[in-house]
Every structure is written in C-alpha cells, then in structure tokens.
C-alpha cells in the first residue's frame, strides 16, 4: 500500500553530501510496482536527484527503468513507495497520495516528459504548435497571441524549424517529432524533465543533433533531468550520475564515468563490456 506521508524524508546514501547542502529536488523511497500480482517490475528502488543534475537510468529491456519513469510522471500508481518534491507547495507531501487533480497540476507545472514513442506524448493530427499551446491552456493561459508566442519560443528553444510549426506531427520526421515533444515538455519551465529513450530509433546523425539540443537546453535551463536509456553512449554524453537497473532493482549507482569505466557490480561489468 502507498503510505501517506507528511513525515520528512530521510537521506538514503551512506555518504551524505557535505558540499551540496540543499536537499534533493526529488526523493523517492521504497518504490515497488507489481503487475499481475507476482511480476515485480520495480523492486524497492530509491532515487534522489539534486537541482540541476542529470541522472541516468540504464538497463536492458524489462529491467524496470521505463516503469520507474512512468511512476515518476504519476501515470501509474505504485504498490508502495513515497515520492517527495522539494517545491514549497508540495513540501513534505507524498505525491503518490495526492488526488487526481493535484497530480495533474504537478504533471502540468512541474514535470515535462519526452517519450521514445511520440504517439504517447503528442497529438499527432493537431498542429505542432497546438501541442505546445495545449499545455499552456491547461495551465490557464487564455490569450491567443501569448499561446502563439510561447509555442514559437519553446519550439525555437528545441531547434525546431519554425516554418513548420503548424504542421501536424504525423507529417514530421522522427527527429522533428522528438523536438516537438521536447518543446512541449519545457514550455512551462518544469522543475523535472523526464526523458524515456529520447533518441532511440532515430538515425545516428539525427540522434546526435537531438542529443546536442538536450545538452544545451539542460545547461541553459538547469532543469533537473532523469534520462532512461539502454544506450550507454547517450547516458555518457548527458548524465552526471547513473543508476544501473536489473530485474527491477538498482544493482549499482555512481558517477557516470565511474560506473562505465570502473563498474563494481558483476552485472554492470558485463553490461559495460558488452556495449563498449
């Protein structure tokens, strides 16, 4: 069961930070998700992410990494776990226990997400700019000109060609669809950006361009980012820290270069050697 929590979260890491004194933006404890009663997709996972950092989650298909992301996006309810967000309005409140409306507010204002499959994140037959405008509308914006401007600005920030801003995503290439998703995700300047295999399935050259945009946006906005990928190259390029998942559990976590160059866990060593 999800426990309701107003009690203050406790740090998990053995070596608590001493230089970084601000609390993590995001703290998740004891996350459990089962499917069909006995399949444990996510098994007692703890996550901390500090303001402005990029956290990678790697693992093979079925490791539970995408489920974690869906849970963080409040798309599904976990079987157990607490989820705290260090923003004044939500301080000390377990996001998993908020009602639907409150969760929707969090998803609208505080979280942006880019899915591997653009069909999950976009309305494919509406205009691209409309996909972004919708988010602002949900946030209460009611001036048409403001919506146009904001959509234009967000699309420009994600390096989308503005002469195509009113084309529906269904007529765009995969790379451009990801840019629309990204523009939609950052339009309201969220605290947390979730990326689910954002470049998987793209051509290698397009992938590089999208990664470059992600890197630049992350640097310019300082948005805390959690990126899920099975591609260690993508993780190395973007993530400060990385968590390695297998069978729903975190088997190793650390600095990205340390985990990739000096993995401690047997499985991580296998994974790294298989990829490099």
């Amino acid at each position: 069961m999800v426990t309701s929590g107003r009690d203050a979260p406790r740090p998990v890491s053995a070596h608590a930070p001493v230089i970084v004194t601000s609390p993590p933006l995001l703290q998740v404890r004891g996350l459990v998700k089962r499917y069909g009663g006995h399949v444990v997709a996510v098994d007692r996972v703890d996550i901390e992410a500090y303001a402005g950092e990029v956290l990678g989650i790697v693992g093979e298909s079925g490791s539970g990494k995408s489920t974690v992301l869906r849970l963080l996006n409040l798309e599904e309810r976990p079987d157990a776990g607490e989820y705290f967000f260090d923003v004044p309005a939500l301080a000390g409140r377990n996001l998993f226990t908020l009602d639907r409306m409150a969760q929707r507010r969090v998803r609208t204002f505080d979280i942006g997400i880019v899915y591997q499959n653009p069909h999950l994140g976009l309305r494919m037959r509406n205009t691209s700019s409309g996909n972004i405008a919708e988010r602002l509308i949900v946030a209460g914006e009611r001036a048409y000109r403001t919506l146009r401007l904001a959509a234009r600005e967000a699309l420009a920030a994600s390096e989308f060609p503005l002469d195509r801003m009113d084309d529906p995503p269904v007529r765009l290439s995969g790379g451009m669809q990801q840019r629309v998703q990204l523009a939609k995700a950052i339009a309201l300047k969220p605290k947390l950006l979730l990326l689910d295999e954002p470049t998987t399935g793209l051509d290698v050259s397009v992938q590089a361009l999208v990664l470059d945009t992600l890197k630049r946006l992350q640097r310019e906005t300082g948005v805390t980012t959690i990126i899920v990928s099975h591609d260690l190259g993508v993780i190395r390029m973007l993530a400060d820290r990385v968590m390695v998942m297998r069978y729903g559990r975190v088997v190793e976590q650390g600095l990205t270069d340390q985990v990739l160059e000096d993995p401690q866990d047997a499985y991580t060593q296998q994974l790294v050697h298989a990829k490099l």
Partner: protein
Amino acid sequence: MSTVAELASSNRGYSYAFLDEFAKRELRRRILKAIAIPGYQVPYASRELPIARGWGTGGLQVTLALVGPDDVVKVIDQGADDSVNAANLRRFIARMAGADTTTDASRATLIQSRHRIPEERLQEHQTLVLQVPDPEPLRSVEHDISKARLMHAEADYGLLWLSLYEQLVRYRRVTLGASYPCLVHHRYVMSPSPIPRWDVPKLHQSAHLTLLSAGREKRLYAVPPYTDVRPLEFADVPFRVEDQRGWMCYRTGLQNKFMNELPQTGGGAIYEISDTGFVEKVLRKVPDREAAGSTPAQAAVGATYYDDEGRFYIDGYLR
C-alpha cells in the same frame, strides 16, 4: 379549459400528458438535479413516444413532464411555428395535456424549440425547452465517451480550447457556427444545442429557465435563471455573433434580428427574420398604448435581446 382530473380520467385510454406517472416523476427529478448542477448532463430513461427519435423526443419528454392545463405552449422549429414538425408537436402536446397554444413568445409559459431562441426577451415565468441532437460538447475532440465524462469531472477542457486555437491557426477565425460550446456557471462546458451564435448570448444571465434534452442520447441539462453562460473565447479573440449587418427583413423592414437568407432566381438574395412569431407581431403593428387593454393575442412587441442598432441588451457582454 379542462381540469387535470378530467384530463387524467382513466377512460381516455392513456395517461395525462401521454407519459405515465412514473416516467414523469423520473423526468422531474432529473430536471431538478440538472437545475441544481448547471450545465451538467443528467442521464435519464428516455421513453418511446409516438414520434421517431431525432424529431424532438428529448424536448417533448421534458415538455410533457412539465406541462399542465394552465400552460400556454409555443413550439418553434428553426424559428418557425408553422413547419410540419412544429405543428405536429404543438397539436400533440395540446391534445395530451389540454394546454392552450400560441405563436407569441411573450404569451407562452412553456416554449419547446429546435435550434432557436426567440428574439423577444423571455421572462422569469417562462421555461424554454431546447431539443438537443448531441449533448456532448467534447464529442468532436474526444470520441471515447467515458474519457469525456472524466474530462467533465476534472473540468479538463484543454482539448476544446485547442480546437479553437487550431481553427484560428488554420482559418484565422473560429469556424464554429451552431452548438458553440459555453462554460456554464464557471464549471461545466455545455453544448447550447444547435442554436446560431446569435442566440448564445441570450442564455447568459437570462430571466427564464432553459432546459436542454436529448432523447436519443438520454441526457438532459439546464441553465437556471440568472446563471453565467460564457462562450469559450480567447482573451484577445472575442466571440462574435453572425455578421448580418446591412441585412434587412423584406417583410418588416427591420434590421439586427437573426435572418434567413433567401436566394433569388436572378442571383442575389433577400432576407427575412427567422423568428416567425416575432414577424407576425411586428406586422400587426399594434401600438403600445392600445396593447394595455387588449387581449393577449394582440400583445405589443416586447423588448428584444438585440435592439434595432444591434446592441445586445447586457451592456458590454459582447465585445
């Protein structure tokens, strides 16, 4: 005029006002609920009637549940009292309920209408029943009806706004004509039934009660008197009614009332006011002074929602 006791006597072979008492009681309870939650679609058990679904059975059931022998009934079909459908409904209601009928909007107590609201301002003692083919304003943006209900529950109307946005992007104007979605009492978005945009402002802070009922879809909803009804509009792209400036009714010489356009054989068009009951009254040209002592049938033309210069009666409501 007959009494209910006479009209409801068992030897007539059917219940008073056609529907059985349980059906009427159910409808009245649904109507009360609809009034209590303005704009919320209340499901009801739509009954079989001696007319086909789609020909006003929703409106007719509400009318039959409310009508009494003291009522004066007017039936409108797209502005007209004299279409076959309007005449049939009017005759059926009068025969089943022993009620009086009229074509004068200000004399009626109960007005059942398809696709129009009269030009004359309705008053507190009047009830307007609108026939609704499709009660769901979200239908065009969300095909899954259970998802649409969830959206209503959460007041999640982003998609409707998005469709307005897209119309502005694609056509530089809102292309919605009839059934323009409205926010009722700052909470539920409703379809005002396929009335023209011209009639939408008439629902805002109106003195009369409006009931909207869809027989095929089995839903009814209400706008109680003096309730805010706002068409969805962007702050910088105001809602506009149909632009008929310059059109003049060939029968009355009036302007700034909702007109039908009648194409002529030689090209071009002439115009006539769509509200036939209103035209009738204007053509009788009864001066106000004589009206005071005259019979109701010769009543003066009442105040209209739009004056002859096209100004709406609530100052500043239409930008």
